[in-house]
């Protein structure tokens, strides 16, 4: 397994429970999609995995070890993360990759870009001049530059057009097929159906389903039915 959650609780500033997971295992292969309505705690769950947030209670294991046992900076280099909006640092694409690995040379950088379907000519392009889809692919390459064992993707296509969205989805599937487990957050079940090997459904901070994408659509839980009913047809 990539991640294991046991009795994990996260409270908000008001003391209200934002996330309560009794037990959850994230497999170490393929794309695992965490799906659920806005405010269900999906991003919080993801941010727990690289310790951008910490749980108030419970145990999280990564690769069999409690995540607190690994120094946070080492953990974050092993658990790459791609955010909702593509985050562009100042400078060129190569400068951006060097934020992750300041020793990286052009040849290794080109290989990274190749993994996300961008060619070497992008290395000298300014990050600010990339399209949304290209910038997000640069962000994936940047996350890969630390040599992570797993990739977290927090609604990575929410600011992209349909064509760029499909490109990012295809890149994620290709990475997963090449052995990189991916944890992908979305509220869009259509996207889930396109990419998920495994599904975790989160509603009101609790896991209401885990299994195959097809199984979610026939799950008996009324909260899931209500969530599915809100999806655009």
């Amino acid at each position: 397994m990539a991640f294991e959650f046991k009795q994990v609780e996260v409270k908000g500033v008001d003391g209200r429970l934002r996330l309560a997971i009794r037990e959850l295992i994230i497999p170490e292969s393929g794309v695992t999609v965490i799906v659920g309505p806005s405010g269900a705690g999906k991003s919080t769950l993801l941010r727990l995995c690289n310790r951008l947030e910490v749980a108030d209670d419970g145990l999280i294991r990564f690769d069999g070890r409690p995540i607190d046992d690994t120094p946070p900076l080492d953990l974050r280099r092993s658990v790459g993360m791609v955010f909702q909006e593509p985050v562009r640092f100042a400078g060129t694409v190569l400068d951006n990759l060097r934020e992750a690995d300041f020793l990286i040379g052009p040849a290794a950088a080109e290989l990274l870009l190749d993994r996300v379907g961008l060619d070497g000519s992008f290395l000298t392009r300014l990050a600010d001049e990339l399209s949304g889809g290209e910038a997000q692919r640069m962000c994936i390459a940047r996350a890969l530059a630390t040599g992570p064992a797993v990739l977290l993707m927090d609604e990575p296509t929410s600011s992209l057009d349909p064509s760029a969205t499909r490109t990012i989805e295809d890149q994620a599937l290709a990475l997963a097929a090449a052995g990189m487990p991916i944890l992908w957050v979305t509220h869009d079940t259509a996207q889930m159906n396109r990419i998920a090997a495994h599904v975790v459904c989160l509603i009101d901070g609790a896991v209401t389903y885990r299994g195959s994408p097809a199984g979610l659509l026939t799950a008996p839980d009324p909260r899931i039915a209500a969530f599915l009913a809100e999806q655009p047809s």
Partner: protein
Amino acid sequence: MNTADVTTLGLIASLLLVIVAIGMSATQRLGLEREIVWATVRSLIQLLFVGVVLAFIIDPQQPLVLSWAWVAAMIAFAGVVIQRRAPEIPGVLPLGMLAIGAAAIVTLAVIFGLGVFPLEGRTLVPLAGMMVGNSMNATVLAARRVVDEFRDNRPEVEARLALGQSSRQASRRYLQSALRTALTPQIETTKAVGLVFLPGAMTGLILAGVDPIEAVRVQAAIMYLILGSVATTATVMTLGIGRRLFTTDHRLIRLPRS
């Protein structure tokens, strides 16, 4: 020497200008008349009080330690003022005092250690007062700027942390930007001095009949004292707040709105 002593009658005459201010407020219906009267009375009482206390403290017969105690009290009071002006910043009171205390050590050590001014109560208290007063604004500005920088750039900072950068690495450019913003007004003021405005100390000396060139020498030394102290307080404050905004495990804390 041709001095410009203000007699009691002269002081009373200057109150005419307060009446002008009250008149402005009344004709424009600003409702600030009482406020202006209160400010005038209060300022006079405060200044008289300080004048009496200072006359005692900086009397050459008194031990210098009294003046140092006065400086320490000013630094502590500055911390309280800073906290009142920026209560939303975590740990602003101790950091404010630390920042101004550090600036006091650096600047007073240079000013008195190198003999720019003789170390006496009558030089120590006013110079420290000017240093503290000017540093307070820069401290509040720096603290606010740091929090704003990190709030506005939260996604970028977290993206850096997510790449395994330490909080120090991830915060460097935002701290630099905050510090630059905090220091710029003082640098601009230093540039404009003499051309755009005549600063208080120099004006006071000239009014007191001191030769303008002599007044300029004093003023220049004071300007550099203020520049040095503003730079020191803003730097200590920026770095201090920058550390406070991260946990020991390199997470950016939830940031308050100013």
